């Protein structure tokens, strides 16, 4: 498998705080890669640098063989990297269908073609029946699926998910896990997720990176990583073993 995304010694400093310190990793094409770690470990900062919301101070981010670091968020998306937000941000006053249509318009000139694409995605995520409703009337799990549908409408090669399971009940988590697995399996979509819900991480990820105080303390298959003493110490807690 070839590397789709690779980070080489990426650092980000906020005044005195080194939020991300020399982090390097590679996400192979077609993988589901998870980044875990305690609050304040630098996960979201790392995520924002990949998504173009922040510029790395040092190091390089390469996507599909081209440098990505320093590009604005919209340019990153046009390159094929779509994201969701930790706190969902659908276009509230627009209909469910319009939300996804906007995503599909990125690579389509014709509004009707984009609408068709949006409807296909809405079918897939069980949102078709509520397509005429305003996004603001949706429940949190529905909003999360809507945001996922909107991101996928931009036809990404890499999907970045920022705590997409947060706030979901276990049954809803399982549903989201199934959706993501299907996406990965059916279309070979590469997924990078930042996640707290270990249940989802264990079910989804083929590889896990653990961040603590901005540095990578472990990386490997999930079963190996959760047994790593340093990870247990800093994040999972002794009782998790």
């Amino acid at each position: 498998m070839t590397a789709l995304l690779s980070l080489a010694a990426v650092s980000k400093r906020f005044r005195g705080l080194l939020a991300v310190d020399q982090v390097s990793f590679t996400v192979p094409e077609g993988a589901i890669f998870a980044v875990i770690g305690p609050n304040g470990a630098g996960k979201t900062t790392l995520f924002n640098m990949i998504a173009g919301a922040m510029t790395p101070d040092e190091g390089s981010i390469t996507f599909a063989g081209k440098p990505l670091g320093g590009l604005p968020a919209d340019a990153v998306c046009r390159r094929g990297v779509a994201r969701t937000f930790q706190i969902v941000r659908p276009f509230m006053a627009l209909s469910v269908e319009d939300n996804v249509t906007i995503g599909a318009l990125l690579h389509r000139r014709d509004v009707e073609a984009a609408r068709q694409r949006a409807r296909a995605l809405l079918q897939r995520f069980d949102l078709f029946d509520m397509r005429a409703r305003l996004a603001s009337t949706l429940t949190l799990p529905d909003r999360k699926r809507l945001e996922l549908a909107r991101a996928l409408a931009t036809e990404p090669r890499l999907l970045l998910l920022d705590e997409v399971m947060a706030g979901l009940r276990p049954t809803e988590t399982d549903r989201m896990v199934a959706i993501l697995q299907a996406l990965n399996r059916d279309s070979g979509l590469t997924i990078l997720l930042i996640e707290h819900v270990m249940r989802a991480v264990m079910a989804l990820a083929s590889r896990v990176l653990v961040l603590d105080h901005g540095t990578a303390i472990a990386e490997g298959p999930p079963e190996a990583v959760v047994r790593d003493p340093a990870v247990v110490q800093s994040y999972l807690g002794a009782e998790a073993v």
Partner: protein
Amino acid sequence: MIARLSAGVSRRSAVLLTALLAAFLAAPWIVNDYLLTVLIIILYFAYTGQAWNIMMGFAGQLSLGHAIYLGLGGYVAATLFTQFGIGPWLGLLAAIPVAAACGAMLGFLAFRFGVAGVYFAILTIAFAEFARIGFDHLSLVNASSGLFLPVKQYAHNDLWRLRGGPTMFYYVILAATVFALALCHFLIRSRVGYFWLAIREDEQAARAVGIDTFRYKMYAVMVSAAVTSFAGVFYAFFYNNLFPEQVFSISRSIEIILGPIIGGVGTLFGPILGAFVLTGLAETLNSVMTAFGLDLPGATQVFYGICMLLVIVALPGGVWPPLARRLRVMKGKK
């Protein structure tokens, strides 16, 4: 083209719109000269409100200085007319790029340097004020003494040179209002329109789906400025005079935005309805006061203020959305 424009218009809306248009077309044979002038003012506000709505209602960029595009449009066309004898329609071809360029300059400064929200609104006021003070000292356009267009008694209406009676002006502004409605309808259903709505709703999320927000915000300002500039040309040729203190004043900018706010920001028909409600009620108030022999300067402004308060408290989305549901012409969105 017709098929494209009628797309997304329900049969019911089409019938109601046709009936409304027929009433407007027939109006000059029915109403007296005073009412015709009131209708001209209503349509002028319906037109400018729609132009402003492109920027604020669609793309979410609050302009409180739209008088600048009005003034630039008026001054460019009027100067070409008085100095070189160039007619207003050719003048419009010059006024549109001048207004759009001014919008582009403002947009570039604001969007490149991250001026947003209230600070953006303040910048738009600042631009209008610069223009007012600048034109007050510009001898080419007679500075603060004002620019006058020659007024004669016209034996017949000269549409090409926009010289004539109120009926001609009425039909000109009616055509412009219909054109603006068709343009807005087309824009909001286009790719650009969807991107504007995304930016209005959440700029960061819009960027996350790949929208170059700088570019589309620039388009919004430039299109809105270009559309507004025609209202300036109309204003100049209808009133036959231009004073920087009047045409660039903040009250011109404010009265442009009252209609859309009353009618419904971001809706297609809101600005038109708002112009009707506001100007219609204000004129009624005037007639009533005249009938009772009352002369209260500033009463209209107080009345506008009360209207705004009522709408903000009772119908924050404007008068049009609930009315549209009543008329069953709304499809649940926008």
